[in-house]
């Protein structure tokens, strides 16, 4: 792994073209945090379980700890830094955040649901959020916040909603 030449990359990050040379062993998470200084995306478990490092890759949520950085050549990445705080204010008012470690990932998954409401024809909010673990405040507030943001008002939770 040492001494391998860096790989030149060109991709779109939050709407802007980025050109950078990366370590061949770097993960997308490393590229964002350490090469580009965009520390909004967090590392939690490093094994694709907790979702704290969730970003959008070509419009779909992905764990950036499991993406080799060189694979983002030509692709579109969207991170927490692109999110308008007003868009997710219901998550705050619903008490969906506490220590904040999971929050950037939660917001990226929540925003995906908000921007693709047809997902709820086939999935519950809980199933769509199953890849984001929170160990402080629990999930009811997160689900309520997403429902409120979708409806523009506080909604009933899908507490009865179960992932299959």
């Amino acid at each position: 792994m040492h001494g391998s030449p860096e790989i030149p990359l060109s991709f779109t990050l939050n709407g802007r073209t980025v050109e950078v040379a990366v370590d061949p062993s770097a993960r997308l998470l490393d590229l964002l945090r350490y090469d580009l200084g965009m520390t909004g995306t967090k590392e939690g478990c490093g094994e694709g379980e907790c979702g704290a490092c969730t970003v959008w890759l070509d419009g779909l949520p992905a764990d950036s700890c499991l993406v080799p950085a060189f694979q983002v050549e030509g692709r579109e990445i969207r991170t927490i830094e692109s999110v308008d705080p007003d868009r997710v204010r219901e998550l705050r008012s619903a008490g969906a955040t506490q220590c904040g470690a999971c929050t950037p990932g939660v917001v990226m998954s929540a925003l995906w649901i908000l921007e693709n409401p047809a997902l709820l024809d086939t999935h519950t909010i809980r199933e769509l959020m199953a890849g984001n673990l929170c160990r402080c405040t629990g999930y009811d507030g997160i689900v309520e916040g997403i429902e409120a943001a979708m409806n523009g008002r506080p909604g009933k939770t899908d507490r009865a909603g179960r992932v299959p």
Partner: protein
Amino acid sequence: MRSVRPTGLGQALELLGERPADAPLIPLAGGTDLLVHWPIRPDARDREYLDVTALGELRGVRWSDEALELGALASYWDVIGDRRANEELPILVAAARQVGAIQIQSRGTWAGNIVNGSPAADGVPVLMACDAVVVLASRQGTRALPLDHYYTGYREGARRHDELVVAIRIPRAARPLQRFVKVGPRRAQAIAKVGLAVTRSAAGWRVVAASVAPTVRRCTSVEHLIDENGAPNAPEDLDAALRADVAPIDDIRSTATYRMRVLARVLFDAVRDETERSG
């Protein structure tokens, strides 16, 4: 880590074929298994990889009159979002929805699930229960191998080092029963303690079990038993046939005793429900 990123299938097969068997290029797609705990895995980081994600030929979910063909880059999410798959092969969708969550479903590929070779795979049992065929390409040409003949041992398959899985072909057939059962520690984001895929078609029953043998295993003794005798009267009636088909072990996720007992019960439920429904 070193990697090469060919942009055409021909080039990819040349690169694979140029290597000796003891220093192969390792195909890499979604990376959802490979990159787990990546910074502390120097052995995996020292290998050399063939990144297949730029191979447009391998994309897509394609339907013909005879088969559903999943390109080797088809992800779980691609199948979850495919209307015809939901109608005709709901067992694939059911399994895909239980692979991790969206962050994994968007990246993980069905072909990667096969080649990775985990005995606890979720995608492999449902593909095997639908008589899937693995399409392998090399510089020498293409061959098609039934998935239930693919595995040769724990995490070992029939793919030669110079071959690439390019597609998975699932023959179309009326399969009135399709059931996938995953027993894990929780409903989402779990690795199976026991997995089961059952289908029934004109060709008979297909019973495939996961996490109960060194590989995902087609249970042909069980299939013969219920093809000939119909539904058993109790889960215990399946024990002898199951013991001929699977060999669970104790490990970090479960015990052999638990796995055998639970497998017999979920299988009994699936077969009984179906025979009652179809009379």
